[in-house]
């Protein structure tokens, strides 16, 4: 049996440093290992620091999801210090996070993902010429429009926090800002500008109101065929080209999904605690198991980390993050039977490895678990069932679909501010344990903090990419991206764009390197050689 081998080092356009090793047989990936290749030690830096140090340091763990880190850091301290957070502050935090996520939609889609559709592999597709016209880097019509306009939503973040990225305007007890009427009207104008010049005109080819009538897979098909503007919008075009080039045929993954939920309701989380969070969220938390078609709520107490295959010297047992000690090994040699990544493997005590991200959020939004008032949206779950389960095409569609809902929630924040009410209630500093969570655009994010004697005793972060890119766990089960890579067809080993599709569809926060190895000997072979 022929073993094809390849070595891409690196694949760009995923954030950070990642190597992936894949075994390929007969043009199909049969095994995969994901290796995170950068360690900066933020949890170690935060030890013994000021309790509020996380507000400064953690947004800088990721310049792309900084608002989401700040959200987690603030709520973690709120629960530890038992603060009261005024209604305006909840809205101002939510708005900051929303506009960061809205920013990411065009920036990620054009800048990181859609470029691959201009790959020569697709030159025989009837959509190819148009894809090049739209998505070619820097010069494509949609690329240039989308990447440039992606700076607009975060102008709203600057109105609240002074700048994006890397503000620390969310603090225990509220926010630092006290926006005025002109800040709010300016923010409205920026949202409208974004809607008119990209969201409706380029992305959807219709009004938000028309798009929002889509509730099912069949509704989506009706919308697609209804007018040429719909079919030729970037969403409509991507849908059609994605199916034409077969993106719905691979990249599925573990088939189980997690979301912490996000956007605490402004009237329901003013006295935040770890336990009361689930019932306070507009976008509910959850775990969805595709095999059994069941939804349950997610809770931080179900989370475990394992470092059997990660470059930490912390034993092989599953531990809760409050019990982590973060001891990096000194020599990070790659041993695929042993340790091979800086990412830990994260699992749910009962359900196992889970995929995080917009796809997970939308599948969970389709569940009837949670509170009756919480957000429900069955579209992506319906598509999932009609298409026979997960694939990389649907992972992308879920993200595109979410944009419209993020936009509506941002409008909600702007409507609900009461400008003469408080934005901050000064808290009393105290020792204790806290937990803050949210959904960054690329998935489930949370922070644990343990404050003792007025300083940080332990700070732990589980990022979305930790869920997705984690290595094998203590039971040797593959992580979500490792699993999603298995079964990926590779048409041309000298240009394995399919591996890029899968890695990029997760919006991994890592730069990716793919090593291919002879499956039989495990030995790395010459680059681009076909054995």
């Amino acid at each position, binding site marked *: 049996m022929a073993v094809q081998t390849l*070595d*891409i*080092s*690196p*694949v*760009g356009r995923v954030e950070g*440093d990642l190597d992936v090793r894949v075994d390929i047989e007969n043009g199909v990936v049969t095994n995969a290992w994901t290796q995170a*290749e*950068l360690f900066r*030690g933020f949890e170690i*830096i935060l030890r*013994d620091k*000021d309790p*509020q*140090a996380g*507000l*400064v*340091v953690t947004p*800088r763990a*990721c*310049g*792309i999801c900084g608002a989401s880190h700040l959200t987690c850091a603030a709520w973690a301290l709120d629960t530890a210090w038992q603060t009261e957070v005024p209604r305006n502050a909840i809205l101002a935090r939510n708005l900051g996070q929303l506009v960061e996520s809205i920013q990411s939609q065009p920036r990620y889609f054009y*800048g990181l993902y859609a*470029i691959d559709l201009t790959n020569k592999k697709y030159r025989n597709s009837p959509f190819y010429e148009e894809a090049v016209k739209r998505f070619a880097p*820097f*010069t494509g019509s949609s690329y*240039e429009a989308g*990447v*440039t306009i*992606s*700076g607009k939503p*975060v102008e709203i*973040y*600057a109105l609240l*926090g*002074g*700048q*994006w*990225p*890397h*503000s*620390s*305007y969310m603090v225990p007890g*509220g926010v*630092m*800002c*006290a926006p*005025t009427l002109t800040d709010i009207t300016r923010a409205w104008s920026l949202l409208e500008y974004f809607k008119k010049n990209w969201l409706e005109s380029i992305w959807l080819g219709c009004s938000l109101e028309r798009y929002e009538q889509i509730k099912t897979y069949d509704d989506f098909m009706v919308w697609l065929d209804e007018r040429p503007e719909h079919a030729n919008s970037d969403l409509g075009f991507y849908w059609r080209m994605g199916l034409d080039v077969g993106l719905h045929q691979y990249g599925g993954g573990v088939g189980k999904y997690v979301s912490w939920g996000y956007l605490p309701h402004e009237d329901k989380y003013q006295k935040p605690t770890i336990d009361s969070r689930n019932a306070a969220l507009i976008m509910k938390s959850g775990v969805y198991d595709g095999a059994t078609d069941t939804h349950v709520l997610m809770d931080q107490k179900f989370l475990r980390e394992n470092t059997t295959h990660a470059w930490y010297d912390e034993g092989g047992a599953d531990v809760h993050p409050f019990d982590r000690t973060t001891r990096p090994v000194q*020599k*990070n040699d790659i041993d695929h039977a042993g340790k091979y990544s800086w990412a830990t493997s994260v699992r749910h005590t009962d359900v196992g490895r889970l995929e995080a991200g917009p796809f997970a959020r939308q599948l969970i939004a389709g569940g009837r678990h949670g509170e009756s008032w919480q957000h429900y949206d069955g579209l992506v779950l319906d598509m999932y069932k009609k298409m026979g389960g997960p694939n990389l095409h649907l992972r992308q569609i879920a993200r595109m679909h979410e944009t419209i809902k993020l936009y509506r929630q941002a409008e909600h924040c702007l409507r609900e501010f009461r400008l*003469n009410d*408080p*934005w*901050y209630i*000064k808290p009393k500093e105290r020792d204790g344990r806290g937990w803050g969570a949210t959904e960054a655009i690329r998935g489930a994010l949370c922070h644990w903090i343990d404050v003792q004697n*007025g*300083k940080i005793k332990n700070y732990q972060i589980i990022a979305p990419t930790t869920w997705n890119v984690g290595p094998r766990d203590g039971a040797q089960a593959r992580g979500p991206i490792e699993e999603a890579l298995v079964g990926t067809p590779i048409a041309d080993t000298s240009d394995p764009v399919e591996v*890029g599709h899968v890695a990029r569809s997760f919006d991994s926060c890592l*730069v990716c*390197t793919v090593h291919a190895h002879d499956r039989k000997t495990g030995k790395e072979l010459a680059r681009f050689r076909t054995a």
Partner: protein
Amino acid sequence: MANLLWLQGGACSGNTMSFLNAEEPSACDLVTDFGINILWHPSLGVELGDNLQKLLRDCVSGAIALDIFVFEGTVVNAPNGTGEWNRFAGRPMKQWVKELSAAAGYTVAIGDCATWGGIPATAPNPSDSQGLQFLKRAQGGFLGAGYKSKAGLPVINVPGCPAHPDWISQIVVAVATGRGGDLALDDLQRPKTFFQSFTQTGCTRNMHFAYKVSATEFGQRKGCLFYDLGCRGPMTHSPCNRILWNRQSSKTRAGMPCMGCTEPEFPFFDLAPGTVFKTQTVMGVPKDLPKGVDKKGYIALTGAAKNAAPKWAEEDLFVV
């Protein structure tokens, strides 16, 4: 026409994200209007795998002219000086940085990590990180104090966490339009055109500073953030209130204290307990005074300011 290569070491991609917020010129304008040829960038580059490695080797050998080398993130040296904790394209990133900076026309450090070490180099600096030519305020860094790029300049330091997109793009435009010779650097190798003035220059709270009206806690519509909330605007060099962020505002305008992130000591006091968002004082006088002001002068100044303060200064100024 100028070739530009941008790599990331111990980085969060924040400077890249900031750069992508640019307008006039946008990142796309730099390519289409100013002829900047972006050879590769981790978030934007098209080349991958073997082609990228060949491109990097061609830059090192001179087969491709590397006009501008931009580095974001720290140089990671751990463990034991090997740099193996940050591998890129099959080897420690620090090896690429050494070779590429030797070949570069101009070498530009973007953001605090690449200039001084930034957050990753905060004690205990677990990744043994350095900036390109500094570690905090100490000159030297990874490339050594004597390093000069082919254009005869040391590393151009564009600090900030992150750097403002205009600080980045204007340097690139200056080089691309033949104005590299006009780049004047201060003693920390920062372009003077941006870093001579202070963060406070242009702050909307300057009148509150002048009359010593303090914002004693967050979420207020008046008051200077220097006296109680730890703002470092009067002793930090940056144009944050001259060239606004995201075209709209600045941290101090929005109500967030300046943390001094364009200076090598950021994060100040290594984030020790009691130092975050709180002005450090001795007998009621701030430990760190506005640049060049001594303690006696400060007491005289603020005493007079208090006495002269008009009634309106104590009322809300930034009202609904």
